[in-house]
């Protein structure tokens, strides 16, 4: 009996799917495009993240500590930093040991395996991330020069102006792409909703008879919901293909830059891309099922 119902639901879903092929294609394409945009948003954010990971959280200065520095040298640097309460925010001062620094480097050099291969957990410098409390960049700059000469310090890096520009650009791009993908996702749900409404209208006589002979609402609804879910799912698979192609072209493009220009950080690791694809497929399936479920419930009051 259960099996009979399942096969009924799939048979009905497939018949209706084929009947409204043009509307179905429109719904699938729209969900594919919107999901592709969602996926691209994720990838762009991740790429910017790689670029900005060192400077996240208002960090303006990084003190790199030599790999062979002694523990007392490290302690010295830390107390020297905390000794500047008018310039440095002691609360936000953060120390990344060699292992943490190496994890960070993996992100920064994601698209530059040559540089990454030169680094190990043993040879990489550890680092202090410094958040300034003063608004005067000159104060920070002069402090950086002082620290350069401290024993155990390898180098001091300052957040350059271009990083600030990139950070701004990143948040702008994020706002725009998230906004656009939300709108497109809403359009996709609307189109799926409309396809299901049309499918239900085409079969209103059948639905009327079903209700009169005592079919439950779920029995009537499930094939339509499956249809919407399938549309969302196909759209998601198409968008995953698009995302894969896009990322491949991007990675190849970035690889042709000279290593060490910083652009290489914009490459997104393939594990992350797969993760995004899983999210897209889940989003597509949910959008399809929700859109059609709402439509099915709305038009079931015969």
């Amino acid at each position, binding site marked *: *009996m259960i099996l*009979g*119902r399942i096969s*009924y639901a799939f048979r009905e879903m497939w018949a209706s799917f084929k009947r409204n092929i043009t509307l179905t294609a429109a719904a699938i394409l729209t969900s594919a495009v919107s999901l592709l945009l969602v996926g691209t948003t994720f990838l762009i954010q991740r790429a910017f993240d790689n670029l900005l990971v060192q400077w996240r959280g208002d960090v303006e200065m990084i003190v790199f500590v030599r790999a062979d520095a002694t523990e007392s040298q490290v302690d010295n640097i830390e107390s020297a930093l905390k000794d500047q309460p008018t310039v440095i925010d002691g609360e936000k001062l953060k120390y990344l040991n060699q292992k943490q620094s190496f994890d960070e480097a993996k992100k920064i050099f994601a698209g530059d395996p040559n540089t990454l291969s030169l680094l190990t957990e043993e040879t990489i410098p550890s680092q202090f991330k410094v958040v300034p409390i003063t608004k005067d960049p000159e104060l920070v700059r002069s402090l950086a020069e002082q620290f350069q000469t401290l024993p155990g310090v390898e180098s001091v890096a300052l957040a350059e102006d271009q990083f600030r520009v990139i950070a701004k650009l990143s948040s702008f791009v994020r706002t725009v792409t998230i906004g656009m993908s939300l709108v497109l996702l809403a359009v996709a749900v609307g189109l799926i909703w409309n396809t299901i409404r049309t499918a239900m209208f085409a079969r209103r*006589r*059948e639905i*009327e*008879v*079903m*209700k*009169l*002979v*005592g*079919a*439950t*609402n779920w*029995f*009537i609804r499930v094939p339509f919901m499956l249809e919407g879910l399938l549309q969302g799912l196909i759209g998601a698979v198409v968008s995953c293909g698009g995302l894969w192609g896009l990322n491949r072209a991007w990675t190849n493009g970035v690889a042709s830059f000279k290593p060490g220009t910083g652009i290489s950080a914009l490459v997104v690791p393939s594990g992350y891309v797969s993760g995004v694809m899983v999210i897209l497929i889940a989003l597509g399936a949910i959008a399809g099922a929700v859109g059609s479920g709402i439509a099915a419930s709305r038009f079931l009051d015969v």
Partner: protein
Amino acid sequence: MIRLESVTKEYAQETVAVRDASFEVQKGEFVFLVGPSGSGKSTLLRLMNRQESPERGEVWVAGRNINEMPDSKVPYLRRTLGNVFQDYKLLPNKTVFENVAFALEVIGKPKHLIAQQVPAVLELVGLEDKTDRFPHQLSGGEQQRVSIARAFVNRPLILLADEPTGNLDPSTGEGIMRLLERINQTGTTIVMATHDHRIVNMLRKRVIQLDRGVIVRDQERGVYE
């Protein structure tokens, strides 16, 4: 089997479809609802299978107050009711057999039961040799027989018929009435709305007469007047 207690149904503000209607139908009875178009016959039928809900009063079917029933239980109420309509409501892309089987299929009846019950009911209505025809290949009377077969295939307690002879010529209509009588004799309660004088006068069943939503007569073995 069916009991209405002071039932009032209004559409919009002005139009009262049924006003303060009370009557009871016993198990196995055959009742005609008569009156001109717009007198509230169809509304009464629609109140009995909860296609409509009354503004005031109670509708009891098979021992339950169906207006207090949650929506999720309504499908199970309807499985105890059969519905026959003036326009048959057959599905044009399904054969006679499939139209009848559909009613069992969508309430989850197993295949072997469908294979048993559908031919039996098609034989009862006299269509055993037209099972593979489509509705448009049948006469009006034959289409109505299919619709009755579909309403009766699940052996409902009650059959609600709304002008079942309304689109048929007199002799075909008589055939449909003989079929309904036969179904009534199996113990099925039948409530039939009609304004067909001849049929009401011929069968001499209980007659409930409506006039602008009000019951003006409830008579055993009545005629149309």
